């Protein structure tokens, strides 16, 4: 099992096919006073969601504010930042968000590996990485990097996942700390808040 650490600094979530429903179920689990920033990279089609519907949709269902990621946004605790179509989402060394139009990685832009790898360099062992449903292998390299830095790694149980190849790839890539069914991931993450720790 994972080494229980008192406090984590941030959560990074990667999700692809079936992600919309998965996040709609997971995100409402975070309480109002949850005090870690949460980053989500969700695969999307080119030019999708130009009106910011996704962030609004989750915002209405969550206790935490959900934002689309813009270049230069300063990261705030207790806020959720969602990737946008056509741009990689990265965490910058000064605690802000950076977008990039670098070539797709694992056929994906945004790529989960790119989010994970940049986030773990900033948060190091304080990062919690989560791979959810998806038909791809994106996130597998990134989650092993998170593991290598001593961060906490969580993967959705492939058996119940809408698409299992992404969780399968993550599990094959490194020793995952917790493999959980979707309905347990939200409550599990919600407990990682600093406020709740002694």
């Amino acid at each position: 099992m994972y080494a229980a650490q008192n406090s984590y600094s941030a959560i990074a979530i990667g999700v692809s096919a079936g992600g919309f429903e998965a996040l709609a179920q997971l995100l409402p689990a975070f309480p109002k006073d949850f005090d870690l920033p949460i980053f989500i990279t969700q695969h999307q089609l080119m030019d999708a969601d130009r009106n910011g519907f996704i962030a609004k949709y989750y915002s209405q269902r969550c206790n935490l504010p959900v934002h689309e990621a813009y270049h230069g946004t300063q990261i705030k605790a207790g806020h959720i930042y969602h990737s946008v179509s056509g741009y990689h989402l990265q965490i910058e060394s000064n605690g802000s968000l950076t977008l990039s139009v670098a070539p797709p990685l694992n056929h994906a832009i945004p790529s989960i590996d790119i989010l994970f790898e940049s986030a773990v360099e900033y948060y190091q062992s304080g990062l919690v990485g989560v791979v959810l449903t998806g038909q791809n292998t994106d996130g597998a390299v990134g989650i092993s990097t998170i593991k290598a830095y001593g961060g906490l790694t969580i993967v959705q149980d492939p058996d119940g996942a809408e698409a299992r190849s992404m969780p399968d790839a993550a599990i094959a890539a490194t020793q995952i700390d917790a493999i959980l069914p979707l309905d347990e991931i939200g409550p599990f993450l919600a407990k990682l808040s600093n406020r709740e720790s002694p």
Partner: protein
Amino acid sequence: MSAQDKVTSVPDLDLEVLEIHLLLTAIEQRYGYDFFNYAMSSLKRRVRNIQCDENLSSISELVPKILHDPQMFDRFLVEMSVTVTRMFRNPQIFKRIKESLLPKLHTYPRIKIWHAGCATGEEVYSMAILLAEADLLKKTHIYATDYNNQSLAIAEKGIYPLEKMQDFSKNYLAAGGQCSFADYYHAKYEHAVMASILSKNITFAHHNLMRDQSFGEMNIIFCRNVLIYFDQILQDKVLTMMRDSLIHRGYLVLGDRETISFTGISESFTEIEPRSRIYQKQPEISGF
């Protein structure tokens, strides 16, 4: 080997910061390009890419190579530049330009437009097409600039792979194009050659936003998907220069996910409509 045995090694991040600093110092002093204000997370990924391609065991091994071999510097520039682009990228922005901006331009005797960071030129030809359809192209001069000479050369030739035309044509229609996109190029083997009438009034030029000044008095400046390469300081510097080179009530067009909200010049512009990414320069508020 089981999954459990695979170890991913963690780089020494502090050392890497030092190595990147040495590399950027070498580049600045030898070639005069100051990359210190590029967004570090993206820069790092690009540098690691070169390190990997060149089979180097550390980033600092790149320093002597770049110092002694100008071609290696060109390689660095091209890697940093990431020229991913398309015709009518985010067509709805072009549609908005066509509907809201072009009608206003008719009143000007001469029009000047600047595409900063034009990459391989698709954005420039897209605009030229819209101008042609609005009967404005003849009185317009377009400046298309980039710091990547390789991509500028492609832009100047206006020759693109034929297979891309389907995607471009779809975007053209989504942007409200009135004719057929095929009217604007002719096929030559595997390539599409853009019609020469489009490029008659375009000047392609090398221009480095880190350092070079403006061309003055523009009606519209396009700076799309370029600011995301920069940190806050360089963004502010570049945006200030652009503001100063726009005419009274001129327009600045940014990329689909770029905003001036977090920058020092947000007061100088108003977005013509929320999420349009089209900003209009506001009259200066005097201090008195």
